């Protein structure tokens, strides 16, 4: 073992994946997640791979997300400006497609369903600021104490505070926090002017409430992990991955834990960006097909495409940079059913891990995509998870036979398989259209346990350049946790039309944000990369174009001109039109301090010098092709750089199976990737 060891841990709802990397060599462990105390699973995995020599220990966890969506959350209070206690119940008012003609729809976060904070713990405080940040009604400390007495009696564990217009003036929120501590003692408090100082009270309120819940979830958790890791001899840097899978040291993360709430899924996108850089690909579509869903995301210009907000469930918004991920109900466990008009359907229901697909033999009777793959012969029972999980092909077929339809068996299986692929192809078109991209220009990275078996089939539906199966596709996501940099970020809202007169204020703001971040990162400006951006809009618009570049260094009239030009260029790239005659209004200014971190290096695969690639076996494919077909089967470990595998073919490896469809071929690349075209 060497001092260069990197450890990445991805805590999922079912399994905790641990990856240790020594100079490119991967040691993986898979531990069932203890859902109620997932830190024990993390420590178990850490012990299994060994962390005493590790330099970094990077953790992504969905524990916080699961706590929120299942509402296993502590009792907390929410304080806001008098007259507006129902901000959280109201949300943004709109409802989803499936509810448009459904009069029984209720908002999932509303009082009539499952509120994060019940109404009696949401209380109005006598105070008011106006939209310019001035005090209209001073904070009434007498009334405040009365309200806090109620909360004290109710023994809330924390208080989230979001007052109207506080993003412009934090004074009342800061004082209110002092009063909370006076009356309630040492409870956790999050205030919106610190957590997310941005306009729009609803998203600021949800972000602040989630921040509070994550503090309560992760503070103790982090202490227990740090203690446990210490006992295991770990002396390196412990980081959390945020919603864009960038790394934050644990202590820094605990000051802004809302950024951690969805840590895991973004890691795969980071892995794609990092692996893509090895392949000289700067734009990559990323598709992670697991048991329950297919997550699609995008790498552009070598970086994951991020949004400035994300939703945990319908309209439950968190303001934090996060990788944009489109999730489709089209995973290996997605259930095939017959709709009311007799049509086949795939998803959105999933058989999950338990009972799982019918072929698992654990009591599942509904057919799934995995059952279709087993019936077709794409998955061979002997090779599934290296033969460790027994599969029952007869049960898969029986499940399809039990469907209430007049379709012949072969059609049921073939159509289910194709319908799953169609669903995924629409998701890919959607994300490409939203970004103004043409799929003809893009390569698709296929990973997750079921990605390599399904996604090469997309080539028959979409004019993609290629589908690339990276090495170790089953554990590829977790590699993202050892492929990222440490990032410290901060942002501020400041409304104003961009012009030379704004330069001094902007310069001062960037200077103070950057100094603060460098201090937190404990590095000098030379050791880090500083990225400045702003979110702006054409004057009169109600929404912003985010992440427009801002020049480094001193800001003067010339740099402001550059910002305006950069805005128009970005706007044109996103929207297809340029409106250069409109003034540009700056709204949000962002700074990231990026500290390079150790990353996994992918190893070159040797080129075949002599001999030829030999298939290990052949297998008959049923249902998919008229008249059947015979596929050659290969072990992935047998493949060398430059080898070409013609379809139909199957490539086996421990945690995944790649299927090369008829008429397609896979070329093995310099890093062991399979490029299917």
């Amino acid at each position: 073992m060497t001092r260069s060891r990197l450890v990445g841990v991805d805590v999922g709802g079912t399994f905790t994946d641990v990856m240790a990397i020594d100079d490119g060599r991967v040691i993986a462990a898979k531990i069932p997640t203890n859902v109620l105390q997932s830190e024990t699973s993390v420590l178990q995995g850490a012990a299994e791979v060994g962390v005493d020599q590790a330099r970094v220990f990077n953790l992504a966890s969905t524990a916080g997300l699961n706590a929120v969506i299942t509402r296993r959350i502590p009792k907390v209070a929410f304080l806001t400006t008098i007259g507006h206690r129902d901000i959280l119940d109201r949300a943004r008012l709109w409802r989803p497609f499936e509810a448009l003609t459904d009069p029984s729809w209720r908002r999932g976060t509303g009082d009539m369903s499952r509120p994060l904070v019940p109404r009696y713990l949401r209380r109005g405080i006598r105070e008011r600021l106006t939209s310019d940040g001035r005090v209209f009604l001073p904070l009434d400390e007498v009334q405040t104490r009365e309200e806090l007495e109620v909360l004290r009696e109710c023994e809330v564990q924390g208080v989230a505070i979001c007052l109207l217009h506080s993003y412009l003036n934090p004074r009342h929120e800061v004082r209110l926090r002092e009063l909370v501590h006076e009356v309630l003692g040492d409870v956790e408090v999050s205030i919106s002017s610190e957590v997310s100082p941005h306009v729009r009270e609803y998203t600021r309120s949800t972000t602040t409430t989630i921040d509070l819940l994550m503090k309560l979830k992760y503070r103790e958790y982090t202490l227990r992990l740090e203690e446990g890791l210490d006992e295991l001899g770990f002396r390196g840097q412990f980081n959390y991955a945020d919603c864009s899978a960038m790394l934050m040291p644990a202590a820094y993360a605990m000051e802004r834990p809302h950024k951690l709430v969805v840590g895991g899924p973004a890691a795969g996108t980071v892995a794609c960006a990092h692996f893509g850089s090895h392949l000289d690909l700067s734009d990559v579509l990323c598709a992670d097909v697991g048991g329950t869903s297919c997550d699609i995301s995008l790498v552009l210009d070598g970086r994951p495409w991020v949004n400035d907000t994300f939703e945990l469930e319908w309209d439950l918004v968190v303001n934090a940079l996060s990788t944009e991920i489109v999730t489709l109900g089209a995973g290996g466990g997605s259930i095939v059913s017959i709709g009311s008009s007799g049509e086949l359907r795939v998803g959105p229901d999933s058989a999950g891990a338990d009972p799982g697909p019918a072929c698992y033999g654990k009591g599942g009777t509904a057919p799934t995509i995995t059952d279709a793959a087993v019936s077709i012969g794409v998955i061979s029972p002997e090779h599934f998870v290296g033969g460790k999980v027994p599969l029952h092909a007869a049960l898969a077929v029986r499940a399809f036979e039990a469907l209430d339809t007049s379709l012949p068996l072969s059609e049921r299986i073939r159509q289910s398989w194709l319908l799953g692929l169609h669903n995924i192809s629409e998701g890919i078109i959607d994300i490409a259209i939203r970004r103004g991209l043409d799929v003809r220009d893009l390569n698709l990275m296929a990973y997750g346990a079921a990605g390599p078996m399904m996604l090469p089939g997309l080539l028959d539906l979409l004019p993609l350049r290629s589908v690339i199966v990276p090495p170790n596709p089953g554990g590829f996501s977790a590699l993202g946790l050892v492929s990222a940099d440490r990032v410290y970020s901060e942002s501020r809202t400041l409304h104003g039309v961009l012009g030379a007169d704004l330069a001094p204020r902007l310069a001062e703001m960037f200077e103070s944000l950057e100094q603060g971040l460098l201090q937190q990162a404990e590095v000098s400006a030379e050791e880090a990369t500083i990225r400045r951006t702003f979110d702006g809009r054409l004057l009169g618009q109600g929404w912003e174009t985010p992440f427009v570049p801002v020049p480094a260094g001193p800001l003067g009239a010339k740099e402001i001109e550059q910002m305006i030009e950069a805005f128009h260029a970005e706007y044109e790239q996103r929207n297809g039109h340029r409106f250069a005659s409109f003034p540009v209004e700056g709204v949000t200014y962002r700074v990231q301090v990026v500290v390079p971190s150790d990353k996994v290096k992918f190893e070159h695969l040797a080129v075949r010098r002599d001999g030829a690639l030999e298939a290990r076996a052949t297998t008959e494919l049923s249902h998919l092709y008229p008249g059947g077909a015979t596929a050659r089967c290969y072990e992935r470990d047998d493949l060398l750089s430059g080898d070409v595998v013609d379809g139909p073919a199957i490539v086996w490896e421990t945690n995944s199976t790649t299927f090369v469809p008829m008429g397609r071929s896979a070329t093995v690349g310099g890093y062991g990737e399979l490029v299917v075209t």
Partner: protein
Amino acid sequence: MAGTHPAPPAGERAQLLRELDSAEFEARYGCDRFTATMLTNRCRYVAAHMANQVRSHAFSPVIRDGSDLCAMVSGPAELGYAMAAVSETMPLFYGSIPDAVRIVIEEYGADEMDEGDVLIVNDYYRVGTHLNDVCLMQPVFRDGRIVAVATIRAHFLDMGGIAMGGFEVVKKSTWEDGLRIPPTLLVSRGRTVTSVLKLLYDNTRLGSLCVPDLMTEIKALDMGVSLLGETIDRYGVEAFTGAVRYACDVSAEAIGEGLRTVPDGVYEGEDWLDGDGLPDSPEYSVKVRITKVGDRAEIDLRGSSGPTRTAINGAWPDIKTGLAYALKSLLDPTTPVSSGTLRNVDVIVPPSAMFNVGPPLPCQMYFLVVYTMVHATYRALNPVLGERAVATGYVTASASGHGRRPDGLEGSLVDSAGPAVIGAWGATRHGDADSSQQSSLGNLINDGVEIHELRGPIVWAASDYVPDSAGAGRHRGGAAIVHDTLWRVPAAHTMQLLFHARRPTAGGGVNGGGSGPTTTAWIFDASVSDDGARLPELPSTLEGELYRGATPFGGVVHPDTHAVDPDGELVVLEGKLARPAGAVVRVLSAAGGGWGDPWTRDPELVKRDVRDEYVSIEGAARDYGVVVVGDLRHPERLAVDGPATEELRRSSRPSESTGPQPDPPERSVARRG
């Protein structure tokens, strides 16, 4: 709606789609079931992709944030351009948009059109809704004929006319509504006809915002047409056409099967609009008489009121919106809408009615007519639906303050919908209803208090739920809300027409559930805010002396105290109320009706409602027969007194209502202004 597969005679049960074997399916649709399913999904996705492209690239906030648009995919001429799929967004477009394509292309002339042509139209007499909703249509050609059409309808901020933005009730004719565009060529073989863009630009107030939106929409149509073309090339015109017919048949069958669950019979319902906004207005009503046999229905609208004297009228296409929404929401809430949705329903439309007007009558407020039709249909069917009956809630009330804006235009001083769109829903068999929803056929996004205050000279002082206002029931309706806004500048205040004020029990509770207060509006003079220097902190109550000094300008109130009073007088604002800075407008948005007998509500839920201040301790006893002990300063110590509750529920149960409630009488009218 465009029929694509003839319905069998009433009473005779057709073979259901799921009962067709493969050969029968292929014979009917010209493709196998898988291809039909896949192509139907494809149409839905193409519609969604177009809508997403417009939404994520549009310029004006009403589209980008408010999502006031829809996109759709239609089939070929021989199917009457039947609509296979429509995107998510506003149900208010669902009935009128399917026919719009046929009407527009047939009038313009399919033979006159070429590949790359886009037509523009907004004329409500042809395509429904109001002039702000501009439709663009682009056909897909194969072998020289139209095989599909992509359509986008999106809200244009202003269409000229006497009122900026258009939302003004008191208009006498369509000429006051604004620019009416017949089917017109906007893009000719891929090239924009700039003279048409200039025509729009020169005749509307906010062309610099709206013309860029049109350019974005044209791009989205190009994308939709290209996706549809690729699909048709791959699967063939015959399969695509078959899939459009299949999509329509699926919707028709779903509504038909829903109708089948209603006992055969004749059901009548009526609902009312309070007036047309002019002095001495009569009440206006929509009457529906539904004759239901098997899986079909005939809906007779004769007997409904004639046209109003103002912009509260609708053109005939919107009749379908009202009826389709009402039937779907009651009988089949989840199957997607298509041209087949109303195939099993015949409608008898009187030649002149407020939902069937022609030139020169204006239609800006068509949605008020649509809601009246929805509620009338609910009132006809709710009594026979049993458990499935749905209580109704808030519809709309827009108070707005007018003056000279910073951009120099005269008009509304606040550019976002704000509190006016927020209101309660009614309860259903599935549970209690939310208090903060919006009217059921809308689906706008609420920007919130801070953005609202940045966009206009107001302080949105409160939006608070009123205790004991929700319609009581086994499942409770949403609460009424008091929305208070302080005006920091002088303004002339107006009130759009209110719903159901003359007839407070219209809509409301079902199956023994109660109804709450109807929408009401007051204006308080500047003394309550020290001329704008102080936050008005009006209590969230409907009682007491609070309202005596206020001027009611909509709703039903006591003649002296001005408090909400179902036995009071109807107040209608004529013209505008000019007020100095510091005036405070309070709008009470109507409560939602309850579902089921409130005396059977779980006492623990009543206690929760007391704890959360939806219901007071007194209200719990009075409206639910539940004795809750404790006080609100100690919310977690509140408790249900079990024996006392049992005794109360046994001894003083109110007499149960049986059957539909009688229509309440009209009330007297007071005028302000």
